[in-house]
Protein backbone atom coordinates (compact mmCIF):
# COMPACT_ATOMS: atom_id res chain seq x y z
CA UNK A 1 0.00 0.00 0.00
CA UNK A 2 1.35 3.41 -0.93
CA UNK A 3 2.08 5.62 2.03
CA UNK A 4 1.45 9.30 2.14
CA UNK A 5 4.38 11.62 2.61
CA UNK A 6 7.27 12.46 0.36
CA UNK A 7 8.79 9.83 -1.95
CA UNK A 8 12.29 8.62 -1.08
CA UNK A 9 13.87 10.25 -4.12
CA UNK A 10 12.60 13.66 -3.03
CA UNK A 11 13.81 13.35 0.54
CA UNK A 12 17.13 14.09 2.23
CA UNK A 13 16.84 10.75 3.99
CA UNK A 14 16.43 8.97 0.65
CA UNK A 15 19.89 10.15 -0.43
CA UNK A 16 21.44 7.57 1.87
CA UNK A 17 19.15 4.64 1.01
CA UNK A 18 20.78 2.22 3.45
CA UNK A 19 19.53 4.36 6.33
CA UNK A 20 15.93 3.48 5.49
CA UNK A 21 12.99 5.32 7.00
CA UNK A 22 12.05 2.90 9.73
CA UNK A 23 11.47 3.68 13.38
CA UNK A 24 14.68 3.93 15.42
CA UNK A 25 15.57 2.71 18.87
CA UNK A 26 17.76 4.82 21.14
CA UNK A 27 19.04 1.74 22.96
CA UNK A 28 22.50 3.00 21.88
CA UNK A 29 22.00 5.95 24.27
CA UNK A 30 20.72 4.15 27.36
CA UNK A 31 22.64 0.87 27.44
CA UNK A 32 25.79 0.63 29.61
CA UNK A 33 26.86 -2.36 27.51
CA UNK A 34 26.59 -0.41 24.27
CA UNK A 35 28.60 2.41 25.82
CA UNK A 36 31.45 0.00 26.56
CA UNK A 37 31.41 -1.03 22.88
CA UNK A 38 31.38 2.62 21.71
CA UNK A 39 34.49 3.35 23.75
CA UNK A 40 36.49 0.78 21.83
CA UNK A 41 34.74 0.85 18.46
CA UNK A 42 34.52 4.63 18.08
CA UNK A 43 36.56 6.63 20.55
CA UNK A 44 39.65 4.44 20.27
CA UNK A 45 39.50 4.30 16.46
CA UNK A 46 38.23 7.66 15.17
CA UNK A 47 40.22 10.86 14.87
CA UNK A 48 39.28 13.13 17.79
CA UNK A 49 39.71 16.88 17.96
CA UNK A 50 41.37 17.90 21.22
CA UNK A 51 42.02 21.59 20.61
CA UNK A 52 43.57 24.22 18.38
CA UNK A 53 47.12 25.27 17.63
CA UNK A 54 46.50 28.68 19.27
CA UNK A 55 46.54 26.75 22.58
CA UNK A 56 50.19 25.92 21.79
CA UNK A 57 51.56 29.35 20.88
CA UNK A 58 55.24 28.66 21.66
CA UNK A 59 57.85 25.95 21.65
CA UNK A 60 57.28 24.13 24.93
CA UNK A 61 53.59 25.10 25.19
CA UNK A 62 51.50 22.17 26.37
CA UNK A 63 48.03 21.27 27.61
CA UNK A 64 46.59 18.06 29.00
CA UNK A 65 43.36 16.53 27.74
CA UNK A 66 41.64 13.99 29.97
CA UNK A 67 39.60 11.48 27.97
CA UNK A 68 37.39 9.53 30.38
CA UNK A 69 35.84 7.75 27.43
CA UNK A 70 39.21 6.21 26.56
CA UNK A 71 40.29 5.91 30.21
CA UNK A 72 43.36 8.00 29.53
CA UNK A 73 44.80 11.49 29.65
CA UNK A 74 46.95 13.04 26.93
CA UNK A 75 49.73 15.61 26.88
CA UNK A 76 49.57 17.73 23.72
CA UNK A 77 52.67 19.84 23.20
CA UNK A 78 54.70 21.86 20.70
CA UNK A 79 58.30 20.66 20.47
CA UNK A 80 61.48 22.65 20.01
CA UNK A 81 61.20 21.79 16.31
CA UNK A 82 57.72 23.40 16.22
CA UNK A 83 55.94 20.07 15.71
CA UNK A 84 52.74 19.33 17.62
CA UNK A 85 52.84 15.93 19.35
CA UNK A 86 50.61 13.97 21.72
CA UNK A 87 51.56 11.44 24.39
CA UNK A 88 49.74 9.41 26.99
CA UNK A 89 50.05 11.39 30.21
CA UNK A 90 51.61 8.47 32.12
CA UNK A 91 55.10 8.17 33.61
CA UNK A 92 57.07 5.13 32.38
CA UNK A 93 58.41 4.49 35.86
CA UNK A 94 55.51 3.52 38.14
CA UNK A 95 52.51 4.57 36.03
CA UNK A 96 51.83 7.86 37.77
CA UNK A 97 49.82 10.44 35.85
CA UNK A 98 52.54 12.87 34.82
CA UNK A 99 50.83 16.27 34.67
CA UNK A 100 47.72 17.54 36.37
CA UNK A 101 46.17 20.75 37.71
CA UNK A 102 44.77 21.25 41.20
CA UNK A 103 44.20 17.50 41.62
CA UNK A 104 44.92 14.46 39.43
CA UNK A 105 41.32 14.87 38.17
CA UNK A 106 42.04 18.35 36.76
CA UNK A 107 43.58 19.29 33.45
CA UNK A 108 46.51 21.71 33.23
CA UNK A 109 48.45 23.76 30.70
CA UNK A 110 51.59 25.84 30.52
CA UNK A 111 55.02 26.22 28.97
CA UNK A 112 58.06 24.16 29.89
CA UNK A 113 61.20 22.50 28.49
CA UNK A 114 60.76 19.16 30.28
CA UNK A 115 57.89 17.27 31.91
CA UNK A 116 58.79 16.11 35.42
CA UNK A 117 56.96 13.41 37.34
CA UNK A 118 55.89 14.58 40.79
CA UNK A 119 56.53 11.12 42.25
CA UNK A 120 60.26 10.31 41.69
CA UNK A 121 61.35 13.18 39.48
CA UNK A 122 61.77 11.39 36.15
CA UNK A 123 61.95 13.98 33.38
CA UNK A 124 60.92 13.81 29.73
CA UNK A 125 61.74 16.06 26.78
CA UNK A 126 59.07 17.73 24.64
CA UNK A 127 59.62 14.93 22.11
CA UNK A 128 58.73 12.36 24.77
CA UNK A 129 62.28 11.05 25.27
CA UNK A 130 63.28 10.14 28.81
CA UNK A 131 65.94 12.66 29.89
CA UNK A 132 66.58 12.05 33.57
CA UNK A 133 66.22 9.13 35.95
CA UNK A 134 66.92 9.61 39.63
CA UNK A 135 69.77 7.29 40.74
CA UNK A 136 69.89 5.73 37.30
CA UNK A 137 72.80 3.49 38.42
CA UNK A 138 70.46 1.65 40.79
CA UNK A 139 68.45 0.15 37.89
CA UNK A 140 69.21 -3.14 36.18
CA UNK A 141 70.27 -3.41 32.51
CA UNK A 142 68.60 -0.07 32.07
CA UNK A 143 68.58 2.00 28.86
CA UNK A 144 66.75 5.32 29.06
CA UNK A 145 66.06 5.32 25.33
CA UNK A 146 63.73 2.36 25.81
CA UNK A 147 61.36 4.31 28.07
CA UNK A 148 59.98 7.34 26.22
CA UNK A 149 56.47 8.67 26.82
CA UNK A 150 53.98 6.58 24.84
CA UNK A 151 53.13 8.55 21.69
CA UNK A 152 49.61 8.98 20.30
CA UNK A 153 48.93 9.59 16.61
CA UNK A 154 48.51 13.35 16.25
CA UNK A 155 47.83 15.48 13.16
CA UNK A 156 46.92 19.11 12.61
CA UNK A 157 44.29 20.15 10.06
CA UNK A 158 43.45 23.83 9.52
CA UNK A 159 44.83 24.55 12.99
CA UNK A 160 42.66 21.87 14.67
CA UNK A 161 44.68 19.27 16.60
CA UNK A 162 43.39 15.71 16.16
CA UNK A 163 44.52 12.53 17.88
CA UNK A 164 43.85 8.88 17.15
CA UNK A 165 44.21 6.36 19.97
CA UNK A 166 44.46 3.23 17.83
CA UNK A 167 47.82 1.49 17.42
CA UNK A 168 47.67 2.14 13.70
CA UNK A 169 44.81 4.31 12.33
CA UNK A 170 43.12 2.60 9.39
CA UNK A 171 42.68 6.01 7.72
CA UNK A 172 44.80 9.13 7.61
CA UNK A 173 43.17 12.21 9.12
CA UNK A 174 42.55 13.70 5.66
CA UNK A 175 40.95 10.49 4.37
CA UNK A 176 38.84 10.33 7.51
CA UNK A 177 37.62 13.93 7.12
CA UNK A 178 36.72 13.38 3.48
CA UNK A 179 35.79 15.91 0.78
CA UNK A 180 32.75 17.51 2.44
CA UNK A 181 34.52 18.46 5.69
CA UNK A 182 37.68 19.34 3.78
CA UNK A 183 35.56 21.90 1.94
CA UNK A 184 36.32 24.08 4.98
CA UNK A 185 39.99 24.26 4.00
CA UNK A 186 41.07 27.83 3.48
CA UNK A 187 38.62 29.34 5.96
CA UNK A 188 40.63 31.88 8.03
CA UNK A 189 40.38 30.07 11.37
CA UNK A 190 43.81 31.45 12.27
CA UNK A 191 42.46 35.02 12.22
CA UNK A 192 39.59 34.30 14.63
CA UNK A 193 41.47 34.04 17.91
CA UNK A 194 39.26 35.89 20.41
CA UNK A 195 37.90 32.86 22.24
CA UNK A 196 35.07 32.39 24.74
CA UNK A 197 35.13 28.84 26.13
CA UNK A 198 32.50 27.01 28.16
CA UNK A 199 32.21 23.64 29.88
CA UNK A 200 29.19 21.80 31.20
CA UNK A 201 28.53 18.45 32.85
CA UNK A 202 25.30 17.20 31.33
CA UNK A 203 22.90 14.46 32.34
CA UNK A 204 22.49 12.67 29.03
CA UNK A 205 24.23 10.35 26.66
CA UNK A 206 26.56 12.34 24.38
CA UNK A 207 24.51 11.55 21.26
CA UNK A 208 21.29 12.90 22.75
CA UNK A 209 22.79 16.39 23.06
CA UNK A 210 24.57 16.09 19.75
CA UNK A 211 21.16 15.36 18.18
CA UNK A 212 19.76 18.59 19.64
CA UNK A 213 22.27 20.72 17.72
CA UNK A 214 22.06 18.86 14.44
CA UNK A 215 18.41 19.50 13.60
CA UNK A 216 16.43 22.75 13.53
CA UNK A 217 13.00 21.09 13.59
CA UNK A 218 12.91 21.97 17.31
CA UNK A 219 14.02 25.57 16.85
CA UNK A 220 10.67 27.33 16.48
CA UNK A 221 9.24 25.43 19.45
CA UNK A 222 11.93 25.05 22.13
CA UNK A 223 13.47 28.38 21.12
CA UNK A 224 10.20 30.14 20.27
CA UNK A 225 11.43 33.17 22.24
CA UNK A 226 14.17 33.77 19.67
CA UNK A 227 11.39 35.49 17.76
CA UNK A 228 9.55 38.48 19.19
CA UNK A 229 6.03 37.46 20.34
CA UNK A 230 4.29 38.65 17.15
CA UNK A 231 6.42 36.32 14.99
CA UNK A 232 6.23 33.17 17.10
CA UNK A 233 4.59 30.25 15.41
CA UNK A 234 3.87 26.82 16.82
CA UNK A 235 2.14 25.78 13.59
CA UNK A 236 4.55 26.09 10.66
CA UNK A 237 8.05 25.68 12.08
CA UNK A 238 11.35 26.03 10.27
CA UNK A 239 12.72 23.85 7.48
CA UNK A 240 16.42 23.47 6.77
CA UNK A 241 17.12 24.20 3.09
CA UNK A 242 20.27 22.06 2.75
CA UNK A 243 21.50 18.82 4.29
CA UNK A 244 24.50 16.82 3.16
CA UNK A 245 26.11 13.59 4.32
CA UNK A 246 29.58 12.33 3.48
CA UNK A 247 30.90 9.16 5.09
CA UNK A 248 30.34 9.46 8.84
CA UNK A 249 29.96 13.26 8.72
CA UNK A 250 27.00 15.60 8.20
CA UNK A 251 26.38 19.19 7.11
CA UNK A 252 23.38 21.43 7.74
CA UNK A 253 23.17 24.86 6.06
CA UNK A 254 20.57 27.55 6.60
CA UNK A 255 19.80 31.00 5.28
CA UNK A 256 18.11 32.53 8.31
CA UNK A 257 14.54 32.62 9.60
CA UNK A 258 12.22 32.51 6.57
CA UNK A 259 15.26 33.19 4.44
CA UNK A 260 15.92 36.58 6.06
CA UNK A 261 19.27 37.02 7.83
CA UNK A 262 18.78 38.32 11.37
CA UNK A 263 20.65 41.57 10.79
CA UNK A 264 18.24 42.49 7.99
CA UNK A 265 15.03 42.04 9.99
CA UNK A 266 13.08 45.24 10.86
CA UNK A 267 13.69 46.70 14.35
CA UNK A 268 10.21 45.75 15.57
CA UNK A 269 11.03 42.12 14.80
CA UNK A 270 14.05 41.95 17.07
CA UNK A 271 14.81 42.55 20.74
CA UNK A 272 15.88 46.02 21.96
CA UNK A 273 19.39 44.90 23.04
CA UNK A 274 20.05 43.63 19.51
CA UNK A 275 18.90 46.90 18.01
CA UNK A 276 20.92 49.04 20.44
CA UNK A 277 24.19 47.13 20.09
CA UNK A 278 23.77 45.91 16.48
CA UNK A 279 24.49 42.35 17.43
CA UNK A 280 22.62 39.19 18.37
CA UNK A 281 22.27 35.44 18.12
CA UNK A 282 23.77 35.25 14.64
CA UNK A 283 26.69 37.56 15.42
CA UNK A 284 27.48 41.25 15.07
CA UNK A 285 25.47 42.73 12.21
CA UNK A 286 28.50 44.16 10.53
CA UNK A 287 30.88 41.56 9.16
CA UNK A 288 34.49 42.35 10.09
CA UNK A 289 36.32 44.13 7.28
CA UNK A 290 38.77 41.25 6.87
CA UNK A 291 39.19 40.28 3.21
CA UNK A 292 39.45 36.56 4.06
CA UNK A 293 35.94 36.74 5.59
CA UNK A 294 34.33 38.34 2.54
CA UNK A 295 31.87 35.79 1.08
CA UNK A 296 33.55 36.19 -2.30
CA UNK A 297 36.80 34.87 -0.81
CA UNK A 298 35.39 32.05 1.30
CA UNK A 299 36.01 28.44 0.25
CA UNK A 300 33.19 27.10 -1.95
CA UNK A 301 32.82 24.10 0.34
CA UNK A 302 31.50 26.34 3.09
CA UNK A 303 28.09 26.71 1.42
CA UNK A 304 27.97 23.66 -0.85
CA UNK A 305 24.20 23.97 -1.25
CA UNK A 306 24.74 27.40 -2.82
CA UNK A 307 22.19 29.01 -0.49
CA UNK A 308 21.46 32.68 -1.09
CA UNK A 309 21.10 34.17 1.43
CA UNK A 310 23.36 31.91 3.45
CA UNK A 311 23.69 32.29 7.23
CA UNK A 312 25.17 29.17 8.86
CA UNK A 313 26.94 25.98 7.91
CA UNK A 314 26.97 23.39 10.66
CA UNK A 315 29.66 20.72 10.09
CA UNK A 316 29.04 17.63 12.22
CA UNK A 317 32.39 15.85 12.24
CA UNK A 318 32.17 12.26 13.47
CA UNK A 319 32.14 11.30 16.20
CA UNK A 320 31.86 14.23 18.61
CA UNK A 321 33.14 17.46 17.05
CA UNK A 322 31.10 20.28 15.52
CA UNK A 323 32.18 23.42 13.67
CA UNK A 324 29.52 26.05 12.95
CA UNK A 325 30.52 28.84 10.59
CA UNK A 326 28.42 32.01 10.60
CA UNK A 327 28.20 34.26 7.59
CA UNK A 328 28.75 37.28 9.88
CA UNK A 329 32.42 36.36 10.28
CA UNK A 330 32.75 34.13 13.34
CA UNK A 331 32.55 30.45 14.21
CA UNK A 332 31.92 28.14 17.13
CA UNK A 333 32.83 24.60 18.07
CA UNK A 334 31.20 21.95 20.23
CA UNK A 335 32.74 18.77 21.63
CA UNK A 336 30.79 16.04 23.38
CA UNK A 337 32.98 13.89 25.67
CA UNK A 338 31.16 10.88 27.12
CA UNK A 339 31.74 10.18 30.81
CA UNK A 340 29.24 7.28 31.13
CA UNK A 341 26.31 5.86 29.17
CA UNK A 342 24.07 8.65 30.48
CA UNK A 343 26.40 11.58 31.21
CA UNK A 344 28.89 13.62 29.23
CA UNK A 345 31.06 16.67 29.50
CA UNK A 346 30.30 19.23 26.85
CA UNK A 347 32.61 21.97 25.60
CA UNK A 348 31.71 25.01 23.53
CA UNK A 349 33.94 27.78 22.19
CA UNK A 350 33.09 30.96 20.27
CA UNK A 351 35.82 32.45 18.07
CA UNK A 352 35.83 36.04 16.76
CA UNK A 353 38.47 38.25 15.20
CA UNK A 354 40.27 40.10 18.03
CA UNK A 355 38.27 43.18 19.06
CA UNK A 356 39.90 46.42 17.98
CA UNK A 357 37.75 48.60 20.24
CA UNK A 358 35.14 48.38 23.00
CA UNK A 359 32.18 48.37 20.60
CA UNK A 360 33.44 45.27 18.84
CA UNK A 361 34.07 43.55 22.15
CA UNK A 362 30.57 44.49 23.34
CA UNK A 363 29.02 43.06 20.17
CA UNK A 364 30.90 39.82 20.69
CA UNK A 365 29.64 39.74 24.28
CA UNK A 366 26.03 40.12 23.08
CA UNK A 367 26.43 37.17 20.71
CA UNK A 368 28.20 35.06 23.34
CA UNK A 369 25.45 35.72 25.91
CA UNK A 370 22.42 35.35 23.61
CA UNK A 371 23.77 32.22 21.96
CA UNK A 372 24.56 30.59 25.30
CA UNK A 373 20.99 31.14 26.51
CA UNK A 374 19.59 29.27 23.51
CA UNK A 375 22.02 26.44 24.24
CA UNK A 376 20.86 26.31 27.84
CA UNK A 377 17.35 25.54 26.61
CA UNK A 378 18.69 22.62 24.58
CA UNK A 379 20.73 21.36 27.52
CA UNK A 380 17.84 21.87 29.91
CA UNK A 381 15.60 19.44 28.03
CA UNK A 382 18.26 16.73 27.88
CA UNK A 383 17.83 15.00 31.18
CA UNK A 384 14.12 14.84 30.37
CA UNK A 385 14.89 13.06 27.11
CA UNK A 386 17.35 10.73 28.80
CA UNK A 387 14.77 9.91 31.52
CA UNK A 388 12.07 9.25 28.94
CA UNK A 389 14.30 6.95 26.92
CA UNK A 390 15.53 5.12 30.01
CA UNK A 391 11.96 4.34 31.03
CA UNK A 392 11.98 1.94 28.06
CA UNK A 393 8.23 2.56 27.85
CA UNK A 394 8.81 2.90 24.10
CA UNK A 395 11.40 1.09 22.02
CA UNK A 396 10.88 2.54 18.54
CA UNK A 397 10.56 6.18 17.57
CA UNK A 398 9.80 7.99 14.27
CA UNK A 399 12.18 10.51 12.70
CA UNK A 400 11.10 12.93 9.97
CA UNK A 401 13.08 14.12 6.98
CA UNK A 402 14.13 17.27 8.88
CA UNK A 403 15.81 14.92 11.38
CA UNK A 404 17.84 13.06 8.76
CA UNK A 405 21.03 13.97 10.63
CA UNK A 406 19.79 12.27 13.80
CA UNK A 407 19.04 9.11 11.84
CA UNK A 408 22.45 9.31 10.17
CA UNK A 409 24.44 9.66 13.42
CA UNK A 410 22.80 6.68 15.10
CA UNK A 411 23.24 4.61 11.92
CA UNK A 412 26.95 5.49 11.70
CA UNK A 413 27.50 4.73 15.38
CA UNK A 414 25.88 1.33 14.88
CA UNK A 415 27.93 0.69 11.72
CA UNK A 416 31.19 1.37 13.60
CA UNK A 417 30.19 -0.85 16.51
CA UNK A 418 29.08 -3.68 14.20
CA UNK A 419 32.30 -3.40 12.19
CA UNK A 420 34.33 -3.53 15.39
CA UNK A 421 32.46 -6.63 16.52
CA UNK A 422 33.16 -8.27 13.14
CA UNK A 423 36.91 -7.81 12.93
CA UNK A 424 38.01 -4.97 15.14
CA UNK A 425 40.31 -3.55 12.48
CA UNK A 426 38.83 -1.57 9.62
CA UNK A 427 36.44 1.32 10.20
CA UNK A 428 33.41 1.63 7.88
CA UNK A 429 33.92 3.74 4.74
Amino acid at each position, binding site marked *: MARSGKPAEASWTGRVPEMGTRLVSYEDSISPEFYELEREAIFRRAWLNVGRVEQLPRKGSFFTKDLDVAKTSLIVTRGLDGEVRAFHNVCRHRGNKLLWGETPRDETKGVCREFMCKYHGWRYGLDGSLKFVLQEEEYFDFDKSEFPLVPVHCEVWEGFVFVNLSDEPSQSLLDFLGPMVRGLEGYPFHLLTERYAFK*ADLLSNWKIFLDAFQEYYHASILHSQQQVPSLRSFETGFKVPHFQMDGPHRLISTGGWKGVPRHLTPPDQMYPIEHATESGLMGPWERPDIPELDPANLPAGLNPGGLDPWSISNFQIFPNFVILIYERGWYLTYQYWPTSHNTHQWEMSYYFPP*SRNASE*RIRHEVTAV*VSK*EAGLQDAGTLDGTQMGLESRAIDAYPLCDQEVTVRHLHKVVDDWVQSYLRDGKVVPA
Partner: protein
Amino acid sequence: MLPEEFADCEPFAAKWCIATEAARYAERLNSTMTEMQAFYDAMYPRVRDAMAHLDEFPLHELPEQELNLLHLVYSLIMVSLPVEVWQQPKVIDSGTAYFDRHLEPAP
Protein backbone atom coordinates in the same frame (compact mmCIF):
# COMPACT_ATOMS: atom_id res chain seq x y z
CA MET B 1 33.22 54.63 39.83
CA LEU B 2 32.08 55.77 36.38
CA PRO B 3 33.14 58.58 34.04
CA GLU B 4 31.38 61.85 34.89
CA GLU B 5 29.12 61.77 31.82
CA PHE B 6 27.57 58.58 33.16
CA ALA B 7 26.75 59.89 36.65
CA ASP B 8 23.11 58.87 36.08
CA CYS B 9 24.22 55.20 36.06
CA GLU B 10 26.36 55.56 39.19
CA PRO B 11 23.70 54.14 41.58
CA PHE B 12 24.01 50.80 39.75
CA ALA B 13 27.80 50.67 39.54
CA ALA B 14 28.50 49.05 42.92
CA LYS B 15 26.24 46.10 42.16
CA TRP B 16 26.78 45.65 38.43
CA CYS B 17 30.41 46.52 37.58
CA ILE B 18 31.50 42.88 37.37
CA ALA B 19 34.55 41.66 35.47
CA THR B 20 33.64 38.08 34.51
CA GLU B 21 30.64 36.50 32.82
CA ALA B 22 30.44 33.77 35.45
CA ALA B 23 30.09 36.37 38.21
CA ARG B 24 27.56 38.40 36.17
CA TYR B 25 25.46 35.29 35.58
CA ALA B 26 25.54 34.50 39.30
CA GLU B 27 24.54 38.09 40.17
CA ARG B 28 21.63 37.86 37.73
CA LEU B 29 20.34 34.66 39.33
CA ASN B 30 20.65 36.31 42.76
CA SER B 31 18.72 39.42 41.71
CA THR B 32 15.02 40.18 41.57
CA MET B 33 13.28 41.27 38.38
CA THR B 34 12.60 44.63 40.08
CA GLU B 35 16.33 45.18 40.59
CA MET B 36 17.18 44.16 37.03
CA GLN B 37 14.37 46.24 35.51
CA ALA B 38 15.58 49.34 37.38
CA PHE B 39 19.14 48.82 36.19
CA TYR B 40 17.98 48.11 32.63
CA ASP B 41 15.76 51.20 32.54
CA ALA B 42 18.70 53.40 33.54
CA MET B 43 21.41 51.74 31.46
CA TYR B 44 19.68 50.74 28.25
CA PRO B 45 19.17 54.33 27.00
CA ARG B 46 22.89 55.00 27.61
CA VAL B 47 24.41 51.98 25.90
CA ARG B 48 25.10 53.69 22.58
CA ASP B 49 26.64 56.66 24.40
CA ALA B 50 28.77 54.26 26.42
CA MET B 51 30.02 52.48 23.30
CA ALA B 52 30.91 55.79 21.63
CA HIS B 53 32.69 56.99 24.78
CA LEU B 54 34.66 53.78 25.25
CA ASP B 55 35.73 53.74 21.60
CA GLU B 56 37.74 56.90 22.28
CA PHE B 57 40.20 54.77 24.30
CA PRO B 58 42.43 51.85 23.28
CA LEU B 59 40.55 48.75 24.43
CA HIS B 60 43.53 47.32 26.27
CA GLU B 61 44.43 50.57 28.04
CA LEU B 62 41.07 51.61 29.47
CA PRO B 63 41.33 53.90 32.54
CA GLU B 64 39.67 52.48 35.66
CA GLN B 65 36.40 54.41 35.28
CA GLU B 66 36.08 53.39 31.64
CA LEU B 67 36.80 49.77 32.54
CA ASN B 68 33.98 49.96 35.09
CA LEU B 69 31.69 51.39 32.41
CA LEU B 70 32.58 48.52 30.06
CA HIS B 71 31.76 46.01 32.79
CA LEU B 72 28.47 47.82 33.38
CA VAL B 73 27.60 47.42 29.68
CA TYR B 74 28.40 43.69 29.95
CA SER B 75 25.97 43.49 32.86
CA LEU B 76 23.30 45.29 30.83
CA ILE B 77 23.71 42.55 28.22
CA MET B 78 23.43 39.95 31.00
CA VAL B 79 20.13 41.34 32.30
CA SER B 80 18.66 42.21 28.90
CA LEU B 81 17.31 38.72 28.17
CA PRO B 82 15.62 38.34 31.58
CA VAL B 83 14.01 41.76 31.08
CA GLU B 84 13.22 41.64 27.36
CA VAL B 85 12.53 37.95 26.80
CA TRP B 86 12.27 35.58 29.76
CA GLN B 87 10.48 37.85 32.31
CA GLN B 88 12.43 35.91 34.96
CA PRO B 89 16.10 35.67 35.98
CA LYS B 90 16.60 32.11 34.71
CA VAL B 91 16.37 31.06 31.07
CA ILE B 92 12.98 29.43 30.47
CA ASP B 93 13.30 25.65 29.99
CA SER B 94 16.99 25.59 30.98
CA GLY B 95 16.28 22.92 33.61
CA THR B 96 19.34 22.03 35.64
CA ALA B 97 21.83 23.08 32.96
CA TYR B 98 24.78 25.38 33.60
CA PHE B 99 27.47 26.37 31.10
CA ASP B 100 30.56 27.66 32.87
CA ARG B 101 32.52 30.22 30.88
CA HIS B 102 36.05 29.37 31.95
CA LEU B 103 37.96 31.38 29.37
CA GLU B 104 37.22 34.84 27.99
CA PRO B 105 39.09 37.88 26.72
CA ALA B 106 40.05 40.61 29.14
CA PRO B 107 38.69 43.19 29.29
